[in-house]
């Protein structure tokens, strides 16, 4: 399968997973209570009044700050959009080679895109020196055997619409930033995709 076909297949898969995540009440169940627990009675009343005013359209909804994929110890990532590097069920050494190849073209992707590595490989001594956000997908034993699948669905939803590539892009001989940008459908003059 060509890297173009792999990328298209991954894109469809992530879209499907993101849709499946919609049926999981996880994010809604937790987020609707964020910052609303352990309030004093006075604060609770104020929050409730605010909710009612927002429902009536009399008060603006608060702006939720965006989830940013950059890390502080990698310069130039302040405004970068995520470039998911999807690497599940991958050999550790192969993944290292792929990451190093992508790291070599990282400067040409920044400041527009920064890699976000989605992986079940625990090689963090290596990852920490890359300076990329790692979204780890561990397999847990029962009763948490469903954890990995549920987290993958959540991540697909969390990064819905973000650029994504299969990890094997890093094994393409002499991969360039131009090739990566072409695969994710970004032109050199495109603004970075927003993610929140």
């Amino acid at each position, binding site marked *: 399968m060509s890297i173009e076909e792999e990328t298209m297949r991954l894109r469809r898969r992530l879209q499907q997973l993101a849709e499946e995540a919609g049926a999981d009440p996880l994010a809604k169940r937790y987020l609707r209570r964020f910052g609303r627990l*352990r309030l004093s009675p006075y604060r609770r009343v104020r929050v409730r009044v605010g909710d009612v005013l927002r429902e009536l359209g009399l008060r603006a909804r608060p702006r*939720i*700050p965006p989830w940013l994929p950059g890390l*502080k110890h990698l310069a130039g990532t302040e405004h970068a959009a995520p470039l998911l590097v999807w690497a599940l069920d991958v050999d550790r050494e192969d993944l290292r080679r792929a990451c190093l190849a992508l790291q070599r073209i990282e400067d040409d992707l920044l400041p527009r895109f920064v890699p976000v590595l989605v992986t079940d490989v625990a090689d963090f*001594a290596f990852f920490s020196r890359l*300076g990329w956000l790692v979204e*780890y997908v561990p397999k847990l034993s*029962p009763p948490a055997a469903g954890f990995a699948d549920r987290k993958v669905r959540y991540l697909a939803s969390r990064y819905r619409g973000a650029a994504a590539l299969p990890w094997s892009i890093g094994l393409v001989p002499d991969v360039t930033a131009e090739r990566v940008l072409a695969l994710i459908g970004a032109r050199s003059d495109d603004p970075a995709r927003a993610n929140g």
Partner: protein
Amino acid sequence: MNADSGTLPRVVLFAINGAGLGHLSRTLAYARRLRGRAIPVFFSLASAMEVIHRMGFEGDYFVSEAWTRSDGVAWNRELMVRFGLLLDEVRPQMALFDGTRPFPGFLDACDAYGVPYRVWSNRRLYRPGHDIAIPERELFDLIIEPGELGSEREVTRPAKPGRTVVTPPVTLLGDTDLLERAAARAALGLDPEGRYALLSLGAGYLDDVLDVALGLIGQLGRRGFDVYYSRAPIAVRDVPLPAGAHPLEVYPLVRYMRAFDVFVGAAGYNTCCEVVQSGVPSLLVPNRVAADDQARRAEIAARHGRVIVSRCDTDEERGDAVDRLLALADDLRSAPPRITLDGADVAADEMLALVGARAPA
């Protein structure tokens, strides 16, 4: 959770990514003592998951607040969902937070899920001005305060919520887990007759340790030592070592510490405990950026171990410190009496008593 018979309580251990591996090491210390009596699962902000797995534990990782470019609200919202997912799936009886101050995302996730019991492992000894009030005390059933060297078990607040227990010092390994000199040298491939020094001055991003490290490597090298420099698994950049100095990447370092004739380290909680536990003559260089009072802790360590303390700011100070360290190493009468270091066992017993698995002694 491989050994889960379905009858043992499941506990989630939340380790924050402080400087180095201190919080993670402490939660691993608890997990090792809970093994067989509970099923520990990690939620780690320290990106050293392979360390957790190598010790036989499972867990998830989430980027730390100190690393992400997201602001505090965005990060805590995301933390709440990620931690909530783990709680949903693991269904623990208890969640332990090891860190300076519990994150809102942690507390909200515990509330939203309904974690039956919460424990806060809160190492104290802050520098003046850093010892914050702790309004969250009431939100925890049990507060474990890992004691400094010389501390004994003491219940400082018996009532729940917020029952508070100071423990003896918490160490990752028990005394019998440390390799003796010959075995440690064999494990590291060192010459049995060699003269070795080990430096471990932090993860390389908390403070600028480069000048101190290079200066001390030079001083020790000129005195005939083969110098090893410990690199933490989560270092985001490595201290560039001069010719003749060797990198060493092992965890836990204390297991191999007796391979070395002398040790030089920062005065973090775990290092101070391990210096005393191993008995290796040591020079402690307190870090002045960390929130904890490393200068005071180093002085306490000097009362209980073969330890000298120096800031090592200048070449002159470094030379003097190494002279004193070598004099200490040559003085075989300098070993002080052994002290109790079973704080992790005490903490584990308290946690198990909380979830009804075993009453404390």
